[in-house]
């Protein structure tokens, strides 16, 4: 049974996502990483972000309805999404996603449809049997 899960996550699903992506049925995203260092006053400094993983095939859909909320003395409008992507790339290497450090940036797509790029802030990630990630994320305003 373990072999089935390993084959599914490391061989089959990455190829399925890759094929779907190749014909435009999935989107492609970059995983943005951020590092923090200690400041001199006990706070933290977030250093420049960088792409940790590129060209990760992904499927996303909006879930639920959100409201406008005051945060930081400003009216914000967020939308929650469910984002699904494989746990491994086509070489069988795992995407080590950290919900605290990583953001997901889905690239723009002109066909099919006309979708601008989207930055998703990770709220939580479910690791589905080591085969598939399902992340609950939020898109802030029109980011």
């Amino acid at each position, binding site marked *: 049974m373990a072999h089935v899960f390993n084959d599914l996550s490391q061989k089959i699903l990455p190829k399925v996502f890759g094929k779907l992506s190749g014909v435009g049925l999935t989107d492609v995203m970059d995983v943005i990483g951020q590092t923090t260092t200690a400041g001199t006053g006990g706070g933290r*400094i977030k250093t420049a972000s960088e792409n940790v993983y590129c060209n990760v095939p992904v499927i996303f859909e909006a879930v639920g309805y959100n409201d406008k909320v005051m945060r*930081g*003395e*400003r009216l914000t409008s967020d939308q929650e999404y469910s984002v699904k992507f494989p746990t491994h790339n086509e070489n069988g290497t795992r995407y080590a996603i950290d919900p*605290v450090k990583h953001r997901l940036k889905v690239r723009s797509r002109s066909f099919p449809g006309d979708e601008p790029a989207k930055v998703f802030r*990770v709220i939580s990630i479910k690791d589905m049997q080591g085969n598939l990630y399902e992340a609950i994320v939020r898109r802030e305003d029109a980011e």
Partner: protein
Amino acid sequence: MSSLSEKVRVALYSKINVSGVTSLATGGVYHLTAPVGAKLPYVTFNRQAPAPVTYSFGNTRIAENDLWLVKAVSDEDSSTTKEPQQLNEEILSAIETAVGNSLTLSGGSVTWNVERFADIPEYLETYNDRLIYHNGFLLRIWSA
């Protein structure tokens, strides 16, 4: 809100909304709330608490004073070289310099003293995957 405090609001905004402040608070300066889509860091200010108007005998109004809250708001994405608390402190310092000790109100009213009353306790709020930092101080503004 009395018309005098409304004049103070306009005068205070014109003192704070200067390049010395907005070069640090790049998101701008706003009364009460920032508009939708404003990018942190920015400054908000509002009348926090009134005080009784001072009268002489014969009901002649002499002066009134209010406490005004001035805040710097930033988050963990606001700077890649400074702690958010440090950035806020620099913004507040620039505001203190910009405001000085006096304001000029329109319509002939005079504000003769602006004094820093107290710092507010700093506080945080969470926003999706990061923290927003609020730092600020209270100004007591006397006018007549």
